[in-house]
């Protein structure tokens, strides 16, 4: 390990118990971080302590432990506000995850404000979660879905994007970072360009982006930004939707039920103000509380330090894989995070994945829930190694060595 590393990886790894297990008789090399991340002790302990000693519902109890749980959730909402630099913590809505957040906007904003002939712009790099909700909305409302094309490096063609923007554009929904290829999109520029098309609201899918780059929703001036807790080293089942207050107020509720109402009679109900307006039912209390220490953890490490270290891993992995020969890396964007999507001549990605698994190496194989970008590159599937700040150069060496074995086994 170089002294210049911005992350002291050996010390960081001690905080993640799951990294110290074996898989198929080898130390686990967990390289599927774009799918989900392992959890630090601080998160695991927080969940344990909450369930063991502090568990109660939120918002409705007059008793002490319910008030305390409510206050804990409020504090995490404030942490999320700070993470994204939102103006008010009332603009932070807890969802089940990024998918839920996008569906919320499609339903609560899209259904209310879109009409036949309007247009929605997404990009060729999107995860299915940022495609299908818009498709469904288009079917329902007679809206048109337009797609920003992608070049051979896996970068968005902004000139083409400019041509798609017009007075009918109502929503622009683009990913901050591609889960399949690692491309980091110029989201500030994308937002600025959309502002020229009057009336368009802009949603940024930050499921990957929030983990790899400091986000400032006010500087960015997007209308919505969403992410998932579990990709940010936090619990599953919790995510965040940031929305500008004026929009959240204008939107319809998403789901209805308890918690999100003001008054209910059999004739009529009125709804709570944001964020509770969008949080029907008992929320994922423990998961929300567990998200707090996850945010603290990455902020203590420093998002800049994480990004710098992961960039080193990306360079190292790219070099090592290219040296092997016979490997094609798809996605060579100039702005790219630590995701290496690759194929091997004459070996299908599933076979790569199964053989790597036998060497204790966890990678994703398949379409990465992003079939259109796979089709764009005429690939039925790829193998994908995606790195986090707790991965090491030694794990990259093991990946390279195991890929040589893949070729040996398969030929």
């Amino acid at each position, binding site marked *: 390990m170089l002294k210049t590393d911005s992350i002291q990886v050996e010390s960081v790894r001690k905080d993640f118990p799951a990294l110290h297990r074996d898989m198929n*008789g080898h130390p686990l090399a967990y390289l599927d971080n774009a799918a989900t991340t392992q959890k630090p002790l601080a998160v695991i302990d927080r969940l344990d302590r909450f369930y063991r000693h502090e568990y109660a519902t939120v918002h409705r109890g007059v008793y002490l432990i319910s008030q305390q749980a409510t206050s804990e959730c409020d504090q995490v909402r404030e942490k999320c506000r700070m993470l994204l630099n939102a103006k008010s913590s009332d603009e932070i809505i807890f969802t089940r995850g990024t998918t839920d957040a996008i569906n919320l906007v499609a339903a609560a904003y899209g259904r209310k404000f879109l009409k036949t002939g309007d247009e929605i712009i997404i990009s060729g790099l999107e995860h299915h979660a940022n495609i299908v909700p818009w498709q469904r909305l288009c079917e329902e409302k007679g809206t048109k879905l337009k797609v920003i094309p992608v070049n051979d490096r896996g970068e968005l063609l902004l000139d083409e994007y400019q041509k798609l923007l017009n007075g009918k554009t109502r929503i622009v929904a683009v990913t901050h970072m591609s889960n399949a290829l690692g491309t980091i999109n110029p989201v500030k520029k994308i937002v600025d360009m959309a502002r020229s098309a009057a009336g368009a609201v802009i949603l940024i899918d930050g499921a990957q982006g929030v983990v790899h780059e400091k986000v400032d929703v006010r500087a960015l001036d997007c209308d919505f930004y969403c992410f998932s807790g579990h990709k940010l080293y936090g619990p599953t089942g919790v995510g965040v939707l940031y929305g500008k207050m004026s929009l959240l107020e204008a939107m319809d509720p998403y789901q209805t039920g308890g918690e999100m109402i003001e008054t209910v009679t059999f004739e009529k109900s009125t709804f709570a103000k944001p964020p509770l307006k969008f949080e029907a039912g008992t929320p994922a209390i423990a998961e929300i509380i567990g998200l707090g220490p996850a945010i603290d953890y990455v902020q203590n490490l420093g998002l800049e330090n994480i990004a710098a270290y992961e960039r080193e891993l990306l360079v190292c992995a790219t070099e090592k894989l290219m040296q092997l020969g016979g490997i094609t890396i798809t996605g060579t964007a100039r702005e790219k995070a630590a995701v290496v999507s690759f194929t091997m001549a004459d070996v299908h*990605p*599933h*076979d790569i994945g199964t053989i790597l698994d036998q060497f204790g190496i966890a990678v994703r194989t398949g379409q990465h829930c992003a079939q259109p970008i796979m089709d764009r590159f005429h690939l*039925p599937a790829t193998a994908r190694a995606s790195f986090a700040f707790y991965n090491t150069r030694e794990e990259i060496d093991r990946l390279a060595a195991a890929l040589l*074995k893949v070729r040996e086994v398969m030929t």
Partner: protein
Amino acid sequence: MIPVPEPKLKSLYQEVILDHNKKPRNFKEIPNSSLYSHGVNPLCGDNYHLYINLDTDGRVSDIGFLGNGCAISKSSASMMTTMVKGMTRAEAGELVRHFLDMMTKYPMPAEDKSKTGRLAIFEGVREFPVRVKCATLIWHALKDALNDAAKQDDRTGGVKHESRQ
């Protein structure tokens, strides 16, 4: 140096399997085939088209498949075509049943394995539960095609069927 988990991998990627993967047999489209089905695994993208022609006695006179997938799915498809050619629909249906039972039943029924002949080499796939669906994909497609044939005996022309698992 990494210790090598050869035996388990060798039992999965046997030479016959690798050979069928590299040189799949009957890897062709049959235009206007009397039976057709499409096997897709949307999770991993494995995707095969299956074409079957039946002669007047109801025997498989020609069979072909085209598509994309891993070594296990492709070799399973290739070997399936070589075995099914010349069989009656009933015989093919029996083979489907024995193969699917061999791959998915716990414990593995010895009788089914013995009835699958050369396909018994796919037994090693059982050690890799997530790959069982690779080995069985084309067999589900074959089952669909045969079911369609049974349902639509009195019709003529190609039968289109989408199979998903």
